[in-house]
């Protein structure tokens, strides 16, 4: 039995005066699929972005595969602070993949080049090998026909699938999805969710921040409801969506599914 792949302890993040995360304890076991839901401003995206250090936590600890990220420094008054060296964060990001709301594909590279880029620049993989890996991942997301296209020539849904292939090519230990369908036209949401769903069936460790509660219900092995920078309630999808224990959770689920069919 191996330990958790990812763990946070009392994770906090402030932007100036505003404290967005107020102490998050989260343990992610290998193979878990965690959906993070909550209202806007609840801190769910910030939490995800702290896990691969797109944002640096203000306080608290993050452990990847049992190893603390960053250096603990003890001040003279005994308080502990963690400092983060760029190199160490780079290695964490290499192992934790991220898919963004805005795709963030590189517009000057083709679909294939986008997918190969991390392997070539970061891993220094030989070009031929990187090409094969990238093509395999693009085939997995159903875009084997679009290798030579530029992102601007693709629909939003296709772009997001390229972004997923690009993240997969690095063979990350954990995959983070930050509202992957929020900037898509409604008719393009399905293809991206289907792609994410096939990854779920492969037993990958994934965390997903989403407004698509229906998808979260089917996707997640565990659901976190964030409210005001804290995990307000967590449980299985069944528990959170069908039998929420706390009033705020219940209200959020009701509000969010008010107009669903």
């Amino acid at each position, binding site marked *: 039995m191996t330990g958790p792949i990812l763990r946070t302890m009392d994770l906090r993040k402030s932007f100036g005066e505003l404290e967005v995360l107020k102490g998050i304890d989260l343990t992610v076991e290998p193979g878990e699929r965690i959906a993070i839901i909550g209202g806007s401003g609840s801190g769910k995206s910030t939490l995800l972005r702290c896990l*691969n250090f*797109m944002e640096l936590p203000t306080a608290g600890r993050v452990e990847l595969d049992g190893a603390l990220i960053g250096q603990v420094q003890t001040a003279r008054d005994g308080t502990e602070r963690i400092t983060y060296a*760029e*190199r160490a964060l*780079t*290695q964490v*990001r*290499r*192992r934790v*993949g*991220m898919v*963004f709301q*805005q*795709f*963030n*594909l*590189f*517009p*000057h590279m083709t679909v294939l080049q986008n997918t190969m*880029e*991390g392997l070539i*620049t*970061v891993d220094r993989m030989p070009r031929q090998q990187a090409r094969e890996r990238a093509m395999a991942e693009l085939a997995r997301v159903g875009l084997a026909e679009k290798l030579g296209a*530029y*992102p*601007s020539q693709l629909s939003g849904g296709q772009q997001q699938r390229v*972004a997923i292939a*690009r*993240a997969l090519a*690095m063979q990350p230990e954990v995959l983070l999805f930050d509202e992957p369908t929020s900037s898509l036209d409604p008719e393009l949401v399905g293809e991206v969710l289907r792609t994410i769903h096939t990854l779920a069936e492969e037993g990958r460790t994934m965390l997903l921040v989403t407004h698509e509660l229906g998808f979260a219900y089917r996707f997640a092995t565990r659901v976190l409801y964030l409210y005001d920078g804290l995990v307000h309630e967590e449980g299985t999808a069944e528990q959170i969506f069908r039998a929420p224990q706390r009033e705020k959770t219940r209200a959020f689920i009701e509000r969010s599914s008010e107009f669903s069919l």
Partner: protein
Amino acid sequence: MPYEWDFLAVLAQWPLLLSGLLGTIKIAVIAIAAGVIVGGLVAAMRLSRLWPVRLLGTIYVDFYRNTPGILHFFWFYYALPVLSNVSLGPLEAAALALATQSGAFYAEVFRGGIGSIRKGQWEGAKALGMIRGQALRRVILPQAARRMIAPFTERSFEIIKTTSLASTLSYGELLYQGMMVASITFRPLETYTLLALIYFALLFSLSALAKWGESRLQAY
């Protein structure tokens, strides 16, 4: 009595004008090449994560932005030999003055181009595990370069026109040679008209070249 134009007397002095044109091209090439290097360094300073380095870069740019170019020419030519033992010829002094001031302007072109790339591109690169330098080289600069072309061309044209200030140091560029031709021929009207045409032809053909270069970079 209407003025009688006589370009033939002026055109007869073509060797002087040609050497002036070559002088202008020479100093412009030096100024632009050196300016790009200085500009790259200053832009890197202004984008540094260390604030003292950033401050130095800002002071440099502000100094050149807020002082007239001709003062730099005078300073390098007349003041430098007094303050140090370095005595520069007109070409060296003018080239140095132009290179340092163009460096300040190019730095702003480079910084502006890099700053115009949205944050998500940096994040996309970082999420793959790239360090800052890799992200800059592979993701940011290739996109920024395209946006830099137009302001870069604009700045370079300013520099080519500013080379005429080197005439104040008696450097034999186009304007200085033109003044000689005017005093030999007593035909200033024709001479300066012709000079304008030569400058126009030079810059216009360069801008056609720049447009062609820009269109070739519109790959995506």
